[in-house]
């Protein structure tokens, strides 16, 4: 009797929690409540960003060099002092190289010819994707710096993604390789160069451009944003290079895979283009 009552109570608890979850999930799709939830999420991200910054600094490559030196030293005690010196020198060298690479990236962001006259907000990537199913990164600029939802995000070599949501001090950027990402593209900047939609296939995977009409791309050719997919991106942003071309058996359609120009797995500095799509 007691066991049956306990089972009923457990099932009731499960039912109530499932219903509560579904209610919250449903509310997230409704305007006013969704805005409130987004506001709370952005505030939490802003609050967590100092911890993210701190840990990112702690995971600096220099740490790896020291760790390597410690492991080796445990096996050859008599060479410890020399190894420490070598480790320190390597660490210094690594630090200098790292700082140099950072400086190069930041400087490169000052000369983004392809964004023309669009004002940009430089930003640093705070963290890798928070979801195992969506490819987004957090950056350290939000609405207070001028960044906002739907703005394109570029790196020195081309388009990296688009702002999904923005808090006061941070923003979430959906990368071009995310599977929900689709971008109007063209091969070359000319009007007769053909246009299509490039779809993300996941991090580390090339973009897929299917059923091309009016273009005959070749491997190595650069793919640009066309600016015609409802105006979601400005035209002429470099996106990827064609890595393979497949012609259908009937020869009527062409499918292409294209490797993003920006190395999204080591993305560190980006610029948010203060440009909004037409409504």
């Amino acid at each position, binding site marked *: 009797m007691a066991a049956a009552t306990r089972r009923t*109570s*457990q099932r009731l*608890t*499960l039912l109530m*929690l*499932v219903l*509560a*979850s*579904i*209610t*919250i*999930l*449903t*509310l*997230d*799709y409704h305007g006013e409540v969704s805005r409130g*939830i987004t506001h*709370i*999420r952005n505030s*939490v*991200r802003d609050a*967590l960003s100092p*911890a*993210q910054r*701190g*840990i*990112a600094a702690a*995971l600096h490559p220099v740490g790896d060099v020291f760790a390597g030196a410690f492991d080796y030293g445990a096996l050859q005690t008599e060479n410890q002092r020399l190894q420490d010196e070598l480790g320190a020198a390597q660490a210094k060298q690594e630090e200098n190289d790292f700082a140099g690479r950072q400086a190069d990236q930041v400087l490169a962001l000052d000369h983004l010819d392809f964004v023309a006259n669009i004002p940009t907000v430089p930003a640093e990537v705070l*963290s*890798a*994707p*928070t*979801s*195992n*199913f*969506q*490819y*987004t990164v957090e950056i350290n600029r939000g609405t207070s710096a001028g960044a906002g939802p739907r703005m394109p995000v570029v790196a020195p070599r081309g388009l990296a993604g688009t702002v*999904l*949501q923005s808090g006061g001090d941070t923003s*979430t950027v*959906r990368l071009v390789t*995310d*599977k*929900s990402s689709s971008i109007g593209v063209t091969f070359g900047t000319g009007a007769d160069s053909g246009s299509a939609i490039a779809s*993300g296939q*996941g*991090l*580390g995977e090339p973009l897929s451009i299917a059923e091309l009409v009016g273009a005959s791309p070749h491997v190595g050719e650069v793919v640009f944003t066309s600016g015609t997919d409802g105006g979601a991106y400005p035209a002429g942003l470099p996106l990827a290079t064609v890595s393979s071309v497949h012609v259908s058996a009937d020869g009527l359609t062409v499918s292409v895979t294209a490797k993003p120009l920006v190395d999204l*797995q080591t993305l560190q500095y980006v610029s948010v283009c203060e440009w909004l799509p037409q409504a």
Partner: protein
Amino acid sequence: MTVLSWARFAGIAVVALIVQVAVLDQIVVLGAHPDLMVTLVGAAGVIAGSARGASMAFVLGLFADLVLPTPYGLSSLTFVLVGFGAGLVRSLPGNRDGRSTEWATSVAAAAVGTLLYAVLGALVGQQGFLGRDAVYAVLVVALGAVVLAVPAVMVMRWIVRGGERAASGFAVPTGGSATR
């Protein structure tokens, strides 16, 4: 569960979220990272039982969704089912006292939770949730849980049993004289 247990749980949930965002999210293998939150859910079910485990899983889901770009409530829904299921596995005859069972159930719950999250995500219209990436995510989360499940189970035991022990310390013993 006592007020003390819930207070401990809230603190652990906040710490776990920070560790997830600041540390574990940076460890990317095959495009996926270990997931402490879902591992804690499995541990909660195993240690606290179905109903209490599901309640704790619901709260953990609300916390986890704060930093995810996916619809709010999706993690809660997934976690509730996983936490309840882990509690049921724990209540099976012969599974009550084994530490290795607690650990294995937590690891399995993390893997099942990740898969269930992908399925439910696809059901609510999220693109790209099912496919090769989901397989990688399940694999990486399960491997991560092999390590994370040990502290997760310990922490959940501290929350649930520690809180109850502390509360019983203030209670009048039953079945005997309190003035002995």
